[in-house]
């Protein structure tokens, strides 16, 4: 996908909704919608025709997020959403997740980065060895408590 442009990558998961009965693509509509999302997510790209490979890691990540926002799902799963991207882009992605949550979407974040978890989650379920070893509300959670639960699970085995 990295060889393709921003529009291609953004509409990939909803391509069929841009095609008519015989499979002809409505390119203008796809491009305009992509522009909307590029603006909304503040993707730093010279144009929607830019090859995704030439964007920074954080902006590539935003394009992937745009791909799924375009489908307008109620539940979004973010699996390690900020791995390998810079601090500024991380903040933007956190802000974005909060916006989405505020607009009524449910978000499940999978992460192994404790500060990130404490920053974004309302409820935290800690897994160890494939089982949930405890669920914490954000107010009562701390890095120590999370680590305790994570280690606790291992002792049991």
């Amino acid at each position, binding site marked *: *996908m*990295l*060889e*393709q442009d921003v529009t*291609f990558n953004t509409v*990939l*998961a909803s*391509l*069929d909704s841009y*095609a008519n009965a*015989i*499979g*002809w*693509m409505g*390119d203008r509509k796809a491009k305009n919608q992509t522009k909307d999302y590029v603006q909304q997510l503040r993707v*730093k*790209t*010279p*144009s929607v*025709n*830019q*090859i995704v490979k*030439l*964007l*920074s890691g954080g902006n590539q990540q935003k394009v992937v997020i745009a*791909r799924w926002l375009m*489908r307008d799902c109620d539940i979004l799963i973010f699996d390690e959403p900020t791995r390998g991207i810079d601090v*500024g882009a991380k903040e933007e992605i956190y802000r974005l997740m909060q916006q989405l949550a505020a607009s009524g979407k449910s978000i499940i974040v999978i992460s192994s980065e404790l500060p990130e978890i404490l920053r974004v989650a309302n409820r935290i379920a800690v897994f160890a060895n494939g089982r949930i070893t405890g669920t914490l509300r954000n107010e009562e959670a701390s890095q120590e408590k999370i680590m305790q639960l994570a280690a606790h699970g291992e002792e049991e085995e």
Partner: protein
Amino acid sequence: MSTPQQSGSTTTVIQQAVAENTDRRDVSGMLKRQLQQSLAFGTLVVLVIFFAIASPAFFTVSNLTTVLLSTAVIAILALGTTFVIITGGIDLSLGTGMALCAVMTGVIITNWGLPIWVGVLGGIATGVLMGLVNGVNITFLRLPPFIATLAMMMIAGGLALVISNVRPIYFSTSAPDFKRIALGVLIPGIPNAVLITIVLAIVAALVLSKTLLGRYTFAIGSNEEATRLSGVNTRRWTIFVYMFAGAFVGVAGVVIASRLDSAQPQIGMGYELQAIAAVIIGGTSLLGGRGSIIGTVIGALIMSVLVNGLSILSIQTEWRNIVVGVVVLLAVFFDSLRNRQRT
């Protein structure tokens, strides 16, 4: 209030810098892409000029018509297989498959005495059916495309011989008009086979760049797993791509049968490699995800100009094969060179 504003202006500056930077890279990337296309086109022009100077017999209307006519069948096969190669696959069953389609057309028209259009549709349907079998073998049985289509190459070649009793099927008495499909002239100066090729090239180019099938062809070739995770039924679309390519094999079978005014069960061998070579020379990547129809058309023209030009210079067939082989080597070498630059 002043702090956010300040940080806001800083980000704008960064944004601009990033934008300028990537913009320049985008332009150079575009130039590179233009270059690879013009490289093939330039090669074609140089070859034509070279042969035109080397022999007065080359640049004549009748010889150029011959070149176009001999390009037709390989170009039609190459158009369809461009899609397959962009998905990262390969189709070795093009050649013998084409022979089988030709034989089926012959059986329907000559042996069964049905009208020509039924024979044409039957030939194309045979190609689509082979594409379906190839696609199912590749996606559901998870056979590598090389193996699945190698097996199909042998099966189709064998079937063509069995069905025809190892004898050519002639159309001259059963359907005297059949040869006009390829050799008739609807538009003065252009044999129908060439016209068919041009129309199919336009259709293929539109499908590749403007339709869902084309988008998924590129998506699957770029990264099949990521495409699947984006909710795309990649198996179904891979099968569609092989069936689409199969339809081109069917048309090629009809055209070659019409041109020879007979269905020759043994003609297919070797055509698949020439078609694949044309696609590769045209800049379509064997790794998938990249390619164009115009490139394939140029690639097919380079192949037939080379063969025709060398034979006009009365160079022996053996040497012609060697030259074509070297050209394929060079094309793949430039392709890998481009890939290295990109990473």
